[in-house]
């Protein structure tokens, strides 16, 4: 995100996690959208998404409800050691 959009942290207003991602994608250009979503509109496999430190797949995925002050983190999915 830093390399394309030039920012590390962005403030977004939204109710659902999916809306946050859409807002980010709309606000930061096609190159960012393509990196974030695959052709089926799903977040790409190699991007991990966390809400307040919890993997979104253990919550309600893109339908996860967000509250004021929640932190959404997008990180490359690398693991193992």
């Amino acid at each position, binding site marked *: 995100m830093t390399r394309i959009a030039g920012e590390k942290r962005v403030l977004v207003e939204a109710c659902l996690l999916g809306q946050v991602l859409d807002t980010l994608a709309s606000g930061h250009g096609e190159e960012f959208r393509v990196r974030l979503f695959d052709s089926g509109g799903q977040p790409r496999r190699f991007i991990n998404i966390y809400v307040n430190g919890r993997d979104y797949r253990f919550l309600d995925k893109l339908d996860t409800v967000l509250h004021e002050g929640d932190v959404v983190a997008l990180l490359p999915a690398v693991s*193992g050691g």
Partner: protein
Amino acid sequence: MIAARDRNLWRYYELLPILDKLSIVDIGTGFSTLHRCDNLAGLLGLKNIYVKDDTVNPTNSFKDRPSSVAISKAREFGVEAVGCPSTGNLAAAVAAHAAKAGLPCYVFVPGNTESNKILQAATYGANIVAVAGTYDEANRLAAQVAEERGWAFANINLRPYYVEGSKTIAFEVCEQLGWRAPDSIIVPLGSGALMLAIKRGFDQFMRLGLIEEKRIRLIGAQGEGCAPIVDAFKAGDEEITPIEHPDTVAKSLAIGDPGDGYYVLKAIRESGGTAESASDDEILDAIDLLASTEGVFSEPAGGVTIAVLQKLVASGVISEDEIIVCCVTGNGFKSADTLQGRLVFPAVIPPSLKAFQESHGGND
């Protein structure tokens, strides 16, 4: 030409991603023993079982291989500090190589990591960050710290270089088998990076004409309480469903969200291989079996490999004649906390022949 070189992983220097030999940070990793396990083979009704014994590396796990490459590259890049998230083995390996390179080191480990692994990394001088959570949470935090501080983490932002070190296991196995590949290889799976690196190693040797082209069966092994790759394989899924709360005695492999899982599934399927898991008891029994038949003392991650071998022999997946290599990736002392629970410490006897005969039976 290769045969005459130093007996460590840097004998394959041309195939490793370092530009200048002066960057190499080496504490004597690799060219580990390939045991021919005739006792174990006899018990299982097989003819050709080999164990690639990476317990003997400088920090007693295969992680010395990727660490040697990653820290060498970090030195080449001129970074300020190195580190990694780890279930324990990588922490020790990175810490030791960082010490040799004179670089500060930060390792992120789950709070329940086995104490010997923490002792080891700390003694090499690493700053230990113990995280109240799973490996996956320690991994996430480490990724955020690496981004924030610009530090070079072996398995995060140095990952493309890191993974190249592990492929030397495949190179050595081929060289040690007399410049040929095995028919099958059983690899314990955490993130899955090791299996993909081993596959790449075989592929590269075939492309270079150092071994004959052949299809090698890749077999993945995990502990039942955290087997997201095995589960996906058995379900015929392409995507991995992550495990939120890993619960297996094979703590080295307790990675609920294996980053390389998708690619490992593809590789296993394309090779005609398989994936299987083993229970805690099966793993611990397998450690005892390997140690008492072949003299190799493995931690649970290696026990998983032997336990899965036994299961696949019983189910007819492994045939009598095939040349099969099992990867034993870490030394049993790493998991002393776990293994000691099974030991019934012998009663202490007075130092007399009579006392010995009373406790061990007479000789008449």
